[in-house]
Every structure is written in structure tokens, then in C-alpha cells.
């Protein structure tokens, strides 16, 4: 295990996180209001316009996020506890980033090859397993999924150049 995941200093405090998420909600609400007004949020001759219902959703989202933001301002001193510690954040990112890379690879080399790479590197990086262990798990999982999805349930998953080369497409 990476030794510096034991770092317990707060990376973010609760208030920062609360304000950021409330701001995100406010932004979503504002976008909804904006587009609802563009579509027409009134009552037309033939009934409510397309933006009539969403307009009020946007208003409620904005008002709620304002109230949540004001509420989070009261988090001071000890109540403004750590939202996530540096070590924890590092662990979370060490899963998030490889996962994002994995998803990015799927469109290039197909899901089976990316899954092998992803599982093997993940086990190597976070688990420090021996090569034969991680290769058997990675290949085993990928081949099992191939059998389940392509053979048994006939659900095609994204494939890349390797499958084309092996004639499995």
C-alpha cells in the first residue's frame, strides 16, 4: 500500500464541499430556468408550453441550493470538520483516474482488452500482486465476460483491433 495514504490532513473541509455542491445545484437550476424561458414557460392558447413545468423545477432547485449554501456558512470551527482527508482523496483518485482511462480506452481497443489492462494494472498498483496472479485474474474475468455476454446472452460489447485480428468480431 502506498505509505502516504495515511495522511490524515483534511484535503477539503465540509464547508468548501457544501458550498461547491450547492453552487453546482444552483448552476443546474439556472440552466433549467434559462432554457425553460427560451422554450416558453407560460400558458399558451393550447395549454402549458414546454418550459412550464421545468421552469418551476429550476426555481425550486435554485432556492433550495441557496438555502443549503446559507446553511453551510454556519459550519465554523469544529463543526467545519474534514470532508475528505488527503490520504483518502488519494485513494479515491487512484481508483477514479484509472477508471476514467479505462472508459476512454474502451472505444479504442474494445472492452475486453481494456478490462484486462485495467484489472491487471489496478491489482499491481494497489495490491502489489505477483504477475501470474494478476494476469490469471485479469484474463479469467475478461474471458468469462466474453463467454457470458457474446456466447450465452448474445449481447455484443465493444470490440477492438485484437478481436478483429483473432476473428472474434
Amino acid at each position, binding site marked *: 500500500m502506498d505509505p502516504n495514504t495515511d495522511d490524515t490532513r483534511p484535503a477539503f473541509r465540509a464547508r468548501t464541499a457544501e458550498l461547491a*455542491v450547492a453552487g453546482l445545484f444552483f448552476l443546474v437550476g439556472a440552466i433549467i430556468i434559462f432554457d*425553460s424561458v427560451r422554450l416558453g414557460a407560460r400558458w399558451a392558447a393550447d395549454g*402549458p408550453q414546454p418550459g412550464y413545468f421545468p421552469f418551476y423545477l429550476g426555481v425550486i432547485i435554485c432556492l433550495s441550493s441557496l438555502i443549503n449554501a446559507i446553511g453551510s456558512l454556519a459550519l465554523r470551527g469544529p463543526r467545519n470538520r474534514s*470532508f475528505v482527508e488527503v490520504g483518502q482523496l488519494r485513494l479515491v483518485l487512484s481508483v477514479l483516474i484509472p477508471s476514467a482511462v479505462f472508459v476512454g480506452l*474502451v472505444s479504442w481497443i474494445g472492452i475486453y482488452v481494456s478490462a484486462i489492462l485495467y484489472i491487471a494494472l489496478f491489482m499491481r498498483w494497489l495490491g502489489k500482486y505477483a504477475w501470474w496472479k494478476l494476469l490469471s485474474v485479469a484474463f479469467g474475468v475478461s474471458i468469462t465476460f466474453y463467454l457470458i455476454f457474446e456466447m450465452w446472452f448474445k449481447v455484443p460489447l465493444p470490440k477492438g483491433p485484437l478481436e478483429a485480428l483473432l476473428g472474434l468480431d
Partner: protein
Amino acid sequence: MDELQSLMHGFAVALTPTNLALMFTGIVLGVIIGVLPGLGGANGVAILLPLTFSMAQTPGGQTSAIILLSCIYWGALFGGAITSVLFNIPGEPWSVATTFDGHPLAQQGRAGTALTAAFTSSFVGALIAVIVVTFLSPIVASFALEFGPPEFFAVYLLTFCAFVGMSKEPPFKTLAAMMTGFALAAVGTDPVTGALRFTFGSVYLLDGFDFLIAVIGLFGIGEIFLTLEEGLAFKGASARINLGVVLETWKELPRYWLTSLRSSVVGCFMGIVPGGATPASFMSYGVARRFSKNGDKFGSGQVEGVVAPETAAHAAGTSALLPMLTLGVPGSPTAAVLLGGLLIWGLQPGPLLFVEQKDFVWGLIASMYLGNIAGLIVVLTCVPLFAAILRIPFSVIAPVIVVVCAIGAYTVHNSIFDVWMMVVFGVLGYLFKKLQYPLAPMVLAIVLGDNAEASFRQAMLMSQGDMSILFSNGLVGGITTLALALLAWPLVTWLWRRARGS
């Protein structure tokens, strides 16, 4: 007794070799899903849903598909108890309350007793709830046949106000999450006028957000991140259940019949009114502690403290299917995913289902009896096997679960964009969960958004924009008033606390 006759017919539908095999497969898969971190009832069913698309096109296949998926749900409900008792990690949110007394029992070397008590009371809770579903749902369905758009909108209003009133999350966070769910549901083509809403010229957004993707991301990926924070190693008690322990526990359990009954009532109520299994389990734990003779010993390993939350969680989880089938309004996220399945297979949930799809409805209800018996047998006999799954290190299991989630998200529409959305929803799920934004109402809003908006607009067309149509007769007025009362409930308790404080 029309219901009994229909139920017997349902047993005939459910008791085919294929369906029985699917039932056991579903239960085993469900328990595994319930035991694994990051996979739970809702996203487990969501990931496996695309696999049933082709199954549902064969004659009688819709019934087989719902039996498979609902048994995964029962299995996941059972599986949550295993991790709570042995590892002190609630596999599912509704088994948090089970850890309070279940894990101390395991530490005292009485894991077998705790697990037997948990499984048996789960079974009892589910059984009582199925009986309620059997006899109450035809009545609710025939009643709901008369519903028009205002009544349906009032039911939706009640569903969502219940979340604000009953969840333990701050009310304005519930509101923000819920309304964002509705907004996500509105993205794409407006069903009434055909106008494009909130797409901003992007082709990916034309079809809107699929709630299955949201469920897989919010509950699956988000949960993995949360589990990671706790570190990479699980430390658990070992478990052996032998016949002696089971019989001994069963001899003890009848003593808690009153607790069971109370918890079942709490559970059924919370399942039908969409409070959900999680609040039900907490509420019934609290009630049991207050009424029990040994109330002050709760938390130190009381069997009664395992019985209460488990009974309620299963009763709630099971009875959540009642509003899903009869009104098309699911009572829990997993019921919402099952409802999504029905829609994809071409069935319209709601009162007409009981008239037009008798085989399907009664086959499902019969399978609920059988599935829970199968579940009890499976979990009592295979506990060591399932506990072994939890001993697989997280650095092996986490990437596999991410791959499973990605495949599940991809197969919904065969689109890589959906897999990206799953990652985004995963990050949001992590943030929301840490900041106490509830996920269940958000998911339910994405599922029901289009229907809720349609019934609102139809009701407004009927009344030419006059809101008073929501009070136009006793029925719709009663539901609306109840909804508004629930919505105001947090305000009332806040004022009450202030008044008493000063």
C-alpha cells in the same frame, strides 16, 4: 376468494422448471450482489436488466424475466445481513440497523445465532408483506382504475412529498436532489409538443438521461469510492451455521412475535408509502428498543435487536412492489428499476396490469412466496461461501466491479457516452452521499419525471390552469392534503422544537 384463485393460477405459472431454476439463480446472484461492496439491489438489477431484453420477447418470458430480477432483489435483501453481522459493514443501507446488535453477537461468537435470526425474521417480514400484497393490491388496482390525471398527479405528489417529510436528510437537500432528478428526466424531446428541451444542440442528450445509468453510477461507482475511504482491508468474524444453532435460534424466536408483528406493520407501511426499507429498519429498531423489556441492553448483542430491523426492511422492500404494480409508482429505487424493466418489456405498470396481464401479475406474486422460501434455504445453507466472497481483497474486487458496472451501463443503449455518464454519476453519488443529499428520491424522480409531468399537464389542461383541480373531489383532495402535510412536516417539527426550546 378471487385472490386465492388467482394466486393458485399464479403458482401454476411460477412453478415451471425454468422459472424455478431462474428463481434460484436470481437468489444466489442477489446474495452475491448484496454481499459485494458497490453492488446492491438497485444497481445489480439495473446491470442485469439488459440481459433480459431477449428473454422477455419469448412467450411467457416477461414473467420469467421479472421472476429472475425480483429474486435478485430478494437475494440482495438477504445478502445485506451477512456483511452487517460478520463484518460490521452494512452491505445495503437498510441493513445499517442490523449491525447495531448483529455484529456484537458475532463478536461474542454467536454469529450463527445472529444470522439465523436475521434470515428468519427477513423471511417472516417478507411473507407478511407478500400476504398484504396478495390481498391489498387487487383492491388498490380496481380503485385506481377510476383515476384520472389529477389523481395520478396527486399520487406522484404524495410520493415525493413523503420523501421530504420522512427522510432523515435535510429537507432542502432532498428537494434539490429530487428536483434535479425531475430536470434530468425532462432533458430530451418534450413528449407533448416534441420540442427539444435542455439539449443545447448535443446529439447525445436527444434521448435524455436514462435512469439505469444514473442508478449504476450513483449507487455502484459512488459506493466503491465510499468503501475505498474506509481502507482496503475487511476484517470479519467467521461464521458457521449448523442445524443445531438454527433449531436453537428458532426455538428462541417465537418469544419476539410481538416485535416481529410491530416491525412488519412498520415495514409494510413504509414500503407502500414510499419511505423505503432504510427508514423502516431504523424506525422499527427504535420502536423495538422502546418497547422491549431489555431495551437498555440494545446495542450489546440482543437477538431482538436483529429481529426488528430485518423484519421491517424485508417487509418494506417487498411491499414496495405494491404501489409499483398497482399505480406505477415504485416505493424504492430497486422497485423503480423493476418498473423500468416492465416498461422496456412493453408492459404498462398500473391498474390495467391486473386486468390485462393476469399471468404476469399473479406469476410474480406467487414467485414472491416461492422466492423467499428459496432464499431462506439458500442463505442458511451457503453462508460460509458468501462470507468467503468478502475475504477477496478489495484491490481485486474493485476493478472487477467497475468493469461489471461499465458493461451494464454500455448494454442499456450500446453507447460509450452512457459509460462516461456513469463515471460522472459515480462522482456525484460520492459527493451527494457524503453531504447527505439523498439518492433515492433523485432516482425515483428520473424514473417518474415524464409521467409526473404528463399527468400534471393533462390535469392543468382539464382545468385550464386552475390548481384547484387538485382539490376538486374528496379523493384527489385527500391525497393532495396528505402530501402537503408531509411536505410541511419538517417545518412543523422544527417549529415545535423551537417552541419547546424557548
